[in-house]
């Protein structure tokens, strides 16, 4: 592979650069508490909250950096941050 001057390459490169490995704590849903309010999806700075067909959500751990905003903002405390086990 040759590099291109100006670091010009195809668009959407952040998809190739999986940043989930930066995470120390991972968010986990308790679907019994979730009211499908969508706040977590709206507030996630990395678009790592994906809607499911049943109206609930799931985390894309390839890109979730574990910032915890979703857990902090969840009005029903339906998200807990768990320490990543190596």
């Amino acid at each position, binding site marked *: 592979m040759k*590099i*291109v*001057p*100006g*670091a*010009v*390459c*195809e*668009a*959407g*490169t*952040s998809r190739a*650069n999986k940043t989930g490995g930066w995470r120390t704590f991972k968010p986990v849903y308790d679907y019994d508490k979730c009211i499908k309010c969508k706040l977590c999806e709206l507030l996630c700075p990395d678009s790592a909250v994906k809607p499911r067909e049943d109206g609930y959500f799931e985390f894309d751990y390839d890109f979730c950096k574990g910032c915890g905003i979703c857990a902090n903002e969840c009005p029903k405390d339906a998200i807990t941050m768990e320490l990543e086990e190596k």
Partner: protein
Amino acid sequence: MPRETTMDKSKMVVVEGSYAVAHSVKVCRPNVISAYPITPQTHIVEDLSQFMADGEIPNCEYINVESEFSALSALVGSSAVGARSYSATTSQGLELMHEVLFNVSGMRLPIVMTVANRAVSAPISIWNDQQDSIAQRDTGWIQLYAENIQEASDMTAQLFKISEDKDIMMPSMACMDGFILSHVYEPVVLLEQDITDEFLPPFNPERTLDPSNPLTFGAFADPNYYTEFRYLQEQAMQTALKKIETVADEFSDMYGRYFGGLIDEYQTEDADIIIMAMGSIVGTIKDVIDRLRENNVKVGLLKVRAFRPFPAEAIKNVIKDAKVVVVLDKNISLGMNAGALFIETKSVLYNTDIDVPVTGYMIGHGGRDIPTSTIDKIIDDAKEIMKSGIKTESQFTDLKEELV
């Protein structure tokens, strides 16, 4: 064979330096101009604004922005889509651009910007020295310094051609001394549209931002790749060394005007003392040389036109047989007690066979006037060095001891 400039008097008009530069920009057919006012650069973008209002610049957007950071950031986008992009700034404005300067050169966007050189605060000063652009020497921008208004305006077309060369693709600064050149009225030939249309081809970059073919510019480079991007930028600078010369020659052939390529020489052939300098001070030095030559003082001038890329070989060639080299700097690297041109000149002589004493003078800070008597005094010092060697390597000039 030295090239001569013959000015066609029937084509000459008396205009302000800023107007001559703005006219050149117009003639270069820019597609995007970003503008934020700052003294002493403001007249350039004001004149361009007038041209826009009068419908004299077709196919061009003129963007008023809210800071110099935005002025250059706007051009990152416009240059990436393939628009010929221009701005002008100075002093604090240029320093505010610092981060964006690296982005522009790193993304290989051939933006041309006029810098009306001005001192940097604090203390606040609107007057001329060259600290502002010298402080940006490591950002990957080509820097040429103009001696007079004609050169500053002609340089604009040369720099678009150099920067947009597909083997270079690096941005450049056309540096002209603030007020001394930006606000002075001089007879000049305004850049000719018909010749320029032949001289400067349309900007046609290999890679552009285009929604139908999306690309990323300046993508993430991890430690496995970053070094190689810097290496390519340095190679482009080395290519620019040759291109600056060939473009100046080509310009001379087509327009009949020549102010030097990387450097220019004045009475250097047999000179014992060679003075090195950049910008408008060169005119004062030539006057002094003319007078001293009548008294058989063998003194010559090496005008440094390109500071980045640094013309090491060209400089070595000129000064190798001199007995003393005197370097004048309108800047200081604080903590080094020396100006940048002096430091660089000394550094390129190390590890060579050239053994000529080099002495430096920091001069004209914050617009301090540089009379011919000051140049006389410096040349007297140089004569002393020829006899008894260097006592002071680098010093302030005309320092008012009673004030400190």
